[in-house]
């Protein structure tokens, strides 16, 4: 089992969710986050002062998948989230040693 952490543009969330549903991936957890990278943050102004804000609003998606589904999920995310402009985001994948579904106590593969 692997966890995919995808940092994406907020506007991509809708289409991404649709694509994953089509793929049969029916669970995910989303967090508000702010990213810093090649994409420059915006400029803000306040009472005559101009200032740079480094961080850009992003969405962090956590999607746990069976290892078999990993490749196709990654591909789906990459496609759905890609606009081709800087700041599209990154995927980070790591291995999970255990998964438990709280409600039923199901474990690992069964819990996904």
């Amino acid at each position, binding site marked *: 089992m692997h966890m995919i952490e995808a940092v994406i543009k*907020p*506007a991509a*969330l*809708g289409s991404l*969710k649709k694509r994953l549903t089509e793929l049969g991936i029916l669970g995910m957890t*989303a*967090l*508000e986050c702010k990213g810093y990278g090649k994409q420059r943050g*915006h*400029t*803000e*102004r*306040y009472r005559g002062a*101009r200032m740079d804000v480094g961080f850009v*609003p992003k*969405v962090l998606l956590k999607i746990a998948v069976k290892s078999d589904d990993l490749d196709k999920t990654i591909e789906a995310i990459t496609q759905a989230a890609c606009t081709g402009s800087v700041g599209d985001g990154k995927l980070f994948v790591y291995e999970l040693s255990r998964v438990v579904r709280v409600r039923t106590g199901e474990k690992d593969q069964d819990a996904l």
Partner: protein
Amino acid sequence: MRWIASGVTPIAFLVLALGLMVMPDTALAQEAQEVAAEAAEVLEAAVDAVAGESPAEEAASATPIDATFIANNLWIMIAGMLVFIMHLGFATLETGLTRSKNTVNILFKNTMIVCIGILTYALVGFNLMYPGFDEVVGIAGWLDVDAIKGFITADTSDTDLFGPDYAAYTWYTDFFFQAMFAATCCTIVSGAVAERIKLSSFLLFATLFVSISYPITGAWKWGGGWLDTLGFYDFAGSTIVHSVGGWAALVMVILLGPRLGKYNADGSSNAIPGHSLTLAAIGVFLLWFGWFGFNGGSVLSADPILVSLVLVTTSMAAAAGGVAAGLVSWAAAGKPDLSMALNGVLAGLVGITAGADQMAIWESVVIGGVAGALVYFAVIFFDRVLKIDDPVGATSVHLVCGIWGTLAVGIFGAKAGMAQLGYQATGIVAMGVFTIVFTLIVGGAIKAAMGLRVSDEEQIEGLDLGEHDMAAYPDFQQTTIKSYQLREA
């Protein structure tokens, strides 16, 4: 129909007006100096007359006529203040019903509308709208170049302007009350075009609309023009202010197109919830409060019977509108909808505005109740059938209920009758046509010349960053994780 002719020269007017405002040529400046000197003398005299005497002396010499005049004038001044606070009501309502990423933009627009509205009304609108009064100030006609600066440089030594011979209030009070009214009309457009219009394009349109179109249609009735002669009745402006603002809003929305993400490929519509129903509710309460001045002040005196009747009919209609919209939404959708109930209150207020002084109590309840129910279906009809993307429901509230209220004067109350209904319809159509044509020409010209919409990227990021480089709520975490999907009822 000499009024309509003037519709073709709006740009000329504006350039002139702005020119006068921004850079008075030396001749004008000199003239202004003279006028100011005169004004100074008059004022000095006035100050002496009032402040120079001891209060006791002054009081002793007071005649009955003064006290009535003072009270009448006081009420119209206070009514003007109440209409002013409606601008705060509109600002909070529109801010609340739109997304937090466009808040700075909406607040900026609404602040500027008040400021520009007052300034241009002094330069152009006031004299354009009340041509009859030009004679009083000794200016030949309203198309005369002098007219457009009539108020701002008028001969203040003409004491006729300040006493009972002019009206139940002073000339300044008249301007104060009317200027606050005028800006209201523009604010109606502001809400409908929110979240995607370019700031500069909007401000240009608003300036032209408030300084030319609104005063011309207004003059047809309140300036003693042909609709007044005909018998058209619009007490406080269901048509002159609200439906006129609503028509302009409708045309601008059509020229502008919907917000990104509002309509799906299959034509279905997505709801785009506003960021604070608390602000929206504050706005509606403030608007109701301000409407006491809007309608109550339109009596144009502090006449106890009429003003108190108007306050009661206004309140009954607002209450009936709120209850009706709340109940209809409850019945239609299974749960009561606050945004609809709030719109219902406004619908009732707009509806009673044309005949607030003509209705019996129960009639005001009926008019308000119908308006409240109407607004529910109008919002859905505009949104889903006509695909008009109006974030705050300005067209439903001001246009639809403005028309309803104007017609209601021919159906209920002291003036009810088929003839009156005809006059009302005439007025609605005439003002509607003029406003639509004006907005199409001016809005279309602006669209061609400088564009109306911000870029899609700017819409996504929000107009606050795009137009202002500012964030309204930097200390609060905004949610970007939302994925509303419309489920057709």
